[in-house]
């Protein structure tokens, strides 16, 4: 039951869609109120660009679940709120979802700061939150399931790749980031990792810029200079949001090619590339756990479901959307297994859930509330998609407490 392919049920889906349109033959839902699914994503403000697609993904999954006859014979109903990219408002809206709407599960948040803001609310009101974005780790809550990557599932393998023969054997690393918690924590972990691999602090350059930074001329020429010390240099970019566009443009204008100074980014995906001219970016790398260009039936099903739901055959899918989808399906399976939506019973049922995810690997929900995930490195192509140049042979279990942060040494494993 756990790996029900969606495509085989597509006819059922369409049938159910038609049935919903005609109240007269609407299937009789079993007794009981609908199961409520909270959606806590910013639909306005700076994060709206990224988070709107996740809201749509959750709504798509609600529609999909209903087309399957709902869960436990009950219909699903989405409750959408807009925390407007405003971090304190996230906590208020989370409280509203849990206390007023009494949702059974919530899918939401993008930035780490918004997750930190809702965490106490979910713990206090014993809610259940699925968080679908790659993040810096250093967190574990009984009420949150993290379906995005932990640092050892994205940042560290990416740097290992840069240091490998195929990646160019980098001996000097530039850590460029936007100035907030995710890049700073990630770079702290990476510095510990690089030191452990014999790359000293003299061979690491670390720089931060404000959100939306547009004047990259100084930084790019400093990177160029840093790279001219006789050792192969690579950039690890945790630059977030649209500051990436002027950054890559400046790299192109200053004549830096991906083969001279390779650059791997952790926050540039298909959605981000959709609005820009990608020709100057060809060869630049991104590390994720999912790319739209992955071949295989699970991904084809996911893309078809999405493009049919959004009624646009050109819309792209990306990693956080896949993480939302995977989390939602694991939650559905856990609810079926527990026979209830009560958080106390669903949480233990979630641990150990396995699912053939669109990334083409079987992912498992681990006792630390994180997933095992494959790590993929893709190269930007002229059409805005990624060409996968490296991947791990198996799904990697998440390590949310990084071994490269000294304070974690005394923490018990698991």
């Amino acid at each position, binding site marked *: 039951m756990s790996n029900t392919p969606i495509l085989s049920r597509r006819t059922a889906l369409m049938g159910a869609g038609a049935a919903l349109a005609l109240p007269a033959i609407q299937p009789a839902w079993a007794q009981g109120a609908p199961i409520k699914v909270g959606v806590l994503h910013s639909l306005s403000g700076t994060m*709206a660009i990224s988070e709107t697609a996740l809201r749509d993904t959750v709504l798509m999954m609600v529609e999909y679940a209903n087309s399957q006859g709902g869960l436990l014979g009950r219909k699903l109903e989405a409750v959408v709120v807009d925390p407007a990219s405003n971090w304190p408002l996230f906590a208020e809206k989370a409280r509203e979802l849990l206390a007023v709407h009494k949702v059974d599960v919530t899918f939401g948040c993008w930035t780490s700061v918004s997750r930190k803001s809702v965490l106490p609310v979910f713990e206090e009101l014993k809610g259940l939150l699925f968080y679908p974005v790659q993040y810096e780790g250093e967190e574990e809550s009984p009420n949150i399931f993290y379906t995005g990557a932990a640092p050892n599932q994205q940042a560290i393998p990416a740097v290992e790749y840069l240091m490998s023969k195929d990646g*160019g054997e980098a001996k000097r690393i530039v850590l460029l980031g936007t100035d907030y918690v995710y890049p700073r924590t990630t770079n702290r972990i990476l510095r510990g990792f690089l030191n452990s691999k014999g790359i000293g602090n003299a061979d690491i350059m670390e720089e*931060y810029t*404000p959100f939306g930074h547009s004047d990259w001329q100084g930084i790019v020429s400093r990177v160029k200079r840093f790279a001219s010390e006789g050792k192969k240099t690579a950039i690890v970019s945790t630059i977030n949001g649209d500051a990436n566009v002027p950054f890559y443009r400046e790299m192109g204008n200053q004549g830096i090619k991906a*083969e001279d100074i390779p650059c791997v980014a952790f926050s540039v995906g298909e959605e981000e590339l959709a609005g820009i001219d990608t020709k100057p970016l060809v*060869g630049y790398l991104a590390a994720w756990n999912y790319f739209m260009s992955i071949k295989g039936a699970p991904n084809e099903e996911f893309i078809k479901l999405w493009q049919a739901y959004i009624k646009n055959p050109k819309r792209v899918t990306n990693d956080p959307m896949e993480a939302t989808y995977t989390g939602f399906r694991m939650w559905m399976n856990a609810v079926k297994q527990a026979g209830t939506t009560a958080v106390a019973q669903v949480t233990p049922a979630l641990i150990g859930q396995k699912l053939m995810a669109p990334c083409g690997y079987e992912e498992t929900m681990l006792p630390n509330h994180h997933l095992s995930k494959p790590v993929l490195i893709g190269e930007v192509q002229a059409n805005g998609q990624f060409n996968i*140049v490296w991947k791990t042979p198996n799904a990697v279990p998440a390590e949310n407490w990084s071994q490269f942060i000294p304070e974690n040494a005394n923490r018990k494993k698991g």
Partner: protein
Amino acid sequence: MKRFLLSCFLALLLMTSGRAQEGFVAALPGLGASFGETASAVEKLGASGDPRGLPILKALQDGTLLRAGDGRILLGQGNAAVDAATGAAAPADGAEPVRLNNRVRSALRSALGQLQLLSPDATERAAAADAVFRSASAENIRLIDTALARETVPAIKEKLRLALAAAQLAGTEAEAKRQAITTLGHAGSTEAREILLKAKAADASLAAPIDVALTEIDRSLAYRRAAETFVQGLSLGSVLLLAALGLAITFGVMGVINMAHGEFVMLGAYATFLVQEALRGTPFAPWALPLAIPAAFLITAAVGALLERGFIRHLYGRPLETLLMTFGVGMVLQQAIRLGFGAQNREVISPPWMQGTLLLPGGIAMTQNRLWIILFGILVFLLVVAAIRFTRLGLEMRAVVQNRRIAATMGIRTGRVDALTFAFGSGLAGLAGVALSQIDNVSPNLGTGYIIDSFMVVVFGGVGSLFGTLVGALTLGIINKVLEPYAGAVLAKVFVLVAIMLFIQRRPRGLFALKGRAAEA
């Protein structure tokens, strides 16, 4: 003729390398097997010197090199494909393009350099000389010697000499090495520095002469770096100047605290986008950017005039209310654009003459888009000064600001002058938007990043003084860029803000304080 040249070329290469035939055939099967094998096959093709390798490498670069299921390598697409080894037609059914990664790309660049060093095309030769220089491999010494003997273009000759030095440094001859070190030292480029450092790490006995050469390079680089920092500061300053000029009129001259100024800048950028879209596919498309200049000016000026007539004129003399009202208007404009164009960034294409780097005399590198923006900023500044000094509107503007009632008694329609002045200032913001569309993202919140900076420049330079705005913008730009390497981008901004706060404490009226409330040009 072409065939003749090619055979000469072939004969020449065969002389330099006897292994050509085997190298070419042996290299082919590796292509597309794995990234590592592709890279070494590319290296073999480059080293073989066989001209048959050239179309294969070019196809690999363009993504038209295919590998069939049975390992044959095909060139071209669909039914037009040919077998790379035999040249016979071979349908490309089921063949997959050979994929590249950065390792293959870097091998490809060196190999293309080796094969194109004797190419009849001068641009190809120049690129090849650069590539051979970068690969700094002793294998290439004879090849470069041959090329150097035949080369006629002085610039390429110079590149080849450097390439030869780099190759000799990797070779075995001690005397050649010493000369190479001196040559590279005179070159004074970061690339030469990199090659010298690598050689130093490889051979400790060369450390002493290399250190001498490195000192020479470092001296010329330090000078160049200082010049580049200055130019970058000038470029940031010109962006600040453009963003602040409109505000220097509306806030500096009229005294209106216009918090929607940033949104006018944003409207200018969207006007640029609209002009580009309107001209897409027409013969005027390459001129979209110059044509956007008047369009952006007129659109934002019209919006500015509406704002002044509709709202601001009712609030003259009430700065707090003006501030709140324009802040609200800014939010409305931002959301209106978000609803109309979507929250995603819009792409404004840079014309080719604004891409890439220009090498100024002395080896100072400067990106073209920044250079154009500096020129544009200066031009707009001069036009504004001229407009205020020499036009009738400028005269009336100054008269109204100096003494509204007397100006009115002289027959000046002060209300009309107010509207036109505000429209003029808004139009200037639109011009800033055209420039920013080339270096920043065209998004609804484009303007919010510039509003604080603009006020900072105007207040620092002295409210009401256009010359103060010019000096203020350039000073802030240069200070920012000088501080950035030491403090980082975030702290540099903080330092500049603190410095301005202290400065304003001592000179509350800015750099160029006006006497009385007169405006000047």
